């Protein structure tokens, strides 16, 4: 069975590399054919042995360097230089196939490209689907810092724990991975069941249990005061939120998102999808990069600080953070480039686009608060966390907001801000009493600002808004002519009456409502 699968895959690889000219890396392979990453490496190695000629191979060489301080190095090396690089390593270093491709790409990022696209697709899947990236099924590393079910918040824990009970046996022991091991080709052996991948349903619990195991490890670390423990483990506070697991996540979402009521799943999932798409550039890149690092260094324990949030929640996938300590340079730099490549600008755009929406969120949050104390508690926690976690983002948001509106912001929620497509869902779920209105005005720099507001609830706000708009209008754009002070002249004949007469005489008086006033452009001297 496994043999046949492998054969098929080998054929596929042959086709992809030579016909499609694609870079096939073990990660891509692992995700695409649902085999573990170690299995994927093995298959690649086999492929290389069989069809290696005429193809370029990038190897992962990891081990201790001879000359420098004892620092564990992981390098990506092309086939040509393999022997040369190997000499630099001390003793027996591990050599694995990283990828095969028709030729070595000029831009190293091309190595990651197909993986990146793939990862994007996987994360775009609805949150209900547990794909291999969500649960990190094929990663050889598990990390004690990864906390999944720490806090005892709500019903999230039990189901997962039951999973642990069921499957711990079959899972690769996380402790084994965690113990400092020297290069592990043995991974092949360790690979428990080659079938795993082919049926996601079976596979899911395996990894879950793995991560929960690590989660419970961490729980042991953090023990009672989770807040106190967080800084110590360098944990991003968000973990709390993510830790609330399946049951708690609903409440979390209510607290965070602007949906007022209706605990139906449907809007939520769709939102999650849009969320993740909205967030793609950064989050995905980060994840990709981090994965690149973490799997490459799967046998590397020097990279201590790889913190991942792995949550089946889907939404929280975007929270995955990686903090790593670069003890080596080459390959990792590329990875970092990947991570920070495209996003920032787009992100900020999104922020600014959707900043108005945040207001709504704040409002609705307050609703939710009223609805249930528990939820609001959770929410407050999460927002507080966010304030700590993402100061920069938040600043950005606030800055944008200040530019456009003077409204006080309750809890700027970066999550929601980052996903402009939130709105439609909101609409669907929103009760009919309030009407969503778009208000367009020109701000002090002459740009057009469109605000989204709720008519009924925000009547007060809207009024003040309007006032703002009006005052600003008079500052910048001329309002109708009649509003302006009439020409104050000593001359007996002039005033308004005459102006009116002239107007009606010459043109139609009606249109002058829209006519700008020159006085609003030029100040008196």
């Amino acid at each position, binding site marked *: 069975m496994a043999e046949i699968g492998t054969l098929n895959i080998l054929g596929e690889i042959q086709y992809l590399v030579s016909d499609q000219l694609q870079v096939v890396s073990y990660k891509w392979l692992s995700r695409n054919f649902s085999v573990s990453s170690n299995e994927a490496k093995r298959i690649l190695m086999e492929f290389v042995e069989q069809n290696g000629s005429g193809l370029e191979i990038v190897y992962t060489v990891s081990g201790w360097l001879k000359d420098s301080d004892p620092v564990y190095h992981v390098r990506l090396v092309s086939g040509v230089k393999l022997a040369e690089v190997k000499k630099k390593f001390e003793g027996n270093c591990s050599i694995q196939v990283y990828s095969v491709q028709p030729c070595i790409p000029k831009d190293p990022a091309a190595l990651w490209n197909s993986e990146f696209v793939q990862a994007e697709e996987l994360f775009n899947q609805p949150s209900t689907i547990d794909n291999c990236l969500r649960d990190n099924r094929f990663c050889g590393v598990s990390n004690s810092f990864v906390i999944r079910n720490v806090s005892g918040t709500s019903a999230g824990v039990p189901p997962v724990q039951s999973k642990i009970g069921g499957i711990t046996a079959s899972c690769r022991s996380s402790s084994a991975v965690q113990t400092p091991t020297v290069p592990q080709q043995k991974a092949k052996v360790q690979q428990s069941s080659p079938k795993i991948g082919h049926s996601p349903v079976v596979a899911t619990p395996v990894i879950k249990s793995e991560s929960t195991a690590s989660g419970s490890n961490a729980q042991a670390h953090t023990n009672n005061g989770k807040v106190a423990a967080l800084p110590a483990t360098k944990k991003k506070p968000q973990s709390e939120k993510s830790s609330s697991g399946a049951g708690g996540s609903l409440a979390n979402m209510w607290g965070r998102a602007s949906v007022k009521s209706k605990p139906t799943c449907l809007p939520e999932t769709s939102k999650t999808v849009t969320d993740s798409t909205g967030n793609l550039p950064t989050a995905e890149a980060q994840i990709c990069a981090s994965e690149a690092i973490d799997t490459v260094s799967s046998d590397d324990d020097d990279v201590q600080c790889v913190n991942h949030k792995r949550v089946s929640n889907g939404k929280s996938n975007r929270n995955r953070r990686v903090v790593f300590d670069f003890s080596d340079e080459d390959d990792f730099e590329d990875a970092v480039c990947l991570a920070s490549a495209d996003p920032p600008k787009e992100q900020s755009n999104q922020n600014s686009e959707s900043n108005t929406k945040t207001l709504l969120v704040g409002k609705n949050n307050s609703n939710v608060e009223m609805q249930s104390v528990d939820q609001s508690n959770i929410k407050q926690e999460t927002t507080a966390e966010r304030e700590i976690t993402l100061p920069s983002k938040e600043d950005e948001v606030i800055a944008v907001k200040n530019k456009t509106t003077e409204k006080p912001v309750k809890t700027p929620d970066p999550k929601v801000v980052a996903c402009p497509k939130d709105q439609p869902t909101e*609409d669907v779920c*929103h009760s009919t009493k*309030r*009407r*969503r*209105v*778009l*208000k*367009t*005005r020109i701000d002090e720099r*002459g740009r057009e600002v469109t605000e989204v507001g*709720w*008519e009924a609830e925000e009547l007060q706000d809207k009024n003040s808004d*309007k006032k703002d*708009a*009006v005052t600003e*209008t008079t500052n*910048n*754009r*001329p*309002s109708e*002519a009649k509003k*302006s002070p009439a*020409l*104050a*002249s*000593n*001359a007996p*004949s*002039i005033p308004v009456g*005459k*102006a009116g007469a*002239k*107007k009606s005489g*010459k*043109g*139609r008086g009606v*249109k*002058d409502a*829209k*006519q*700008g*006033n*020159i*006085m*609003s*452009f*030029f*100040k*008196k*001297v």
Partner: protein
Amino acid sequence: MLELRLLQGSLLKKVLESIKDLVTEANFDCSATGFSLQAMDSSHVALVALLLRSEGFEHFRCDRNISMGMKLVNMAMMLKCAGNDDIITIKADDGGDTVTFMFESPNQDKIADFEMKLMNIDSEHLGIPEAEYQAIVRMPSSEFARICKDLSTIGDTVIISVTKEGVKFSTKGDIGTANIVCRQNATVDKPEDAIIIEMKEPVSLTFALRYMNSFTKATPLANIVTISLSSELPVVVEYKIAEMGYIRFYLAPKIEEDEEDTKPGV
């Protein structure tokens, strides 16, 4: 003591003709730099700024800065009495309440004196900042006048859009719509027929045609009109006055959308 002798008296006649419909009365300010006027129309939508530099006068004597309030219709009537080739001299005493226009025929055989009462006008002088405009269009003034006249038969407003391709004047009225596109056209032999567009960004603004039409009364002053547009600024329609100055018309754009433009939620 003020004494300004202008050889091309017709210029002053044309200036007055061009602004008297827009502005009923205004202060003429005279200083060492020149003879200037700034005034708004009565509805405060348009502003006219006139400058005749002192160098342009054959004789320019202005002992102290002086501001003379005049009713432009009256002044125009008096200037109509001057022949097109006449030399016009403007004279005023410090602290006096009259101004004298003296017309000399070219061969000096006829001299006419017209004295006009000044009036006290409390005008609002506006500071007009120097600005970079997003688009500047130079085109034959007669062409511009024609366009404005034609469009005003169809609609009340003109949308002036400047793109790389050219400048488009469009209007919409009860009977239909009209679009006039003028392409950039600098290669013609006669420079006064050229249409030159300097554009930093595309810009599109809406203006009341009746003001535009009244600006084009300055067409006899210059062959070329310069239209400067910026999205946050009034349009400037400028006519050069024979190397000695300019007359500029500023017009506030129409605001395109209503502020109340709301959309009900789904």
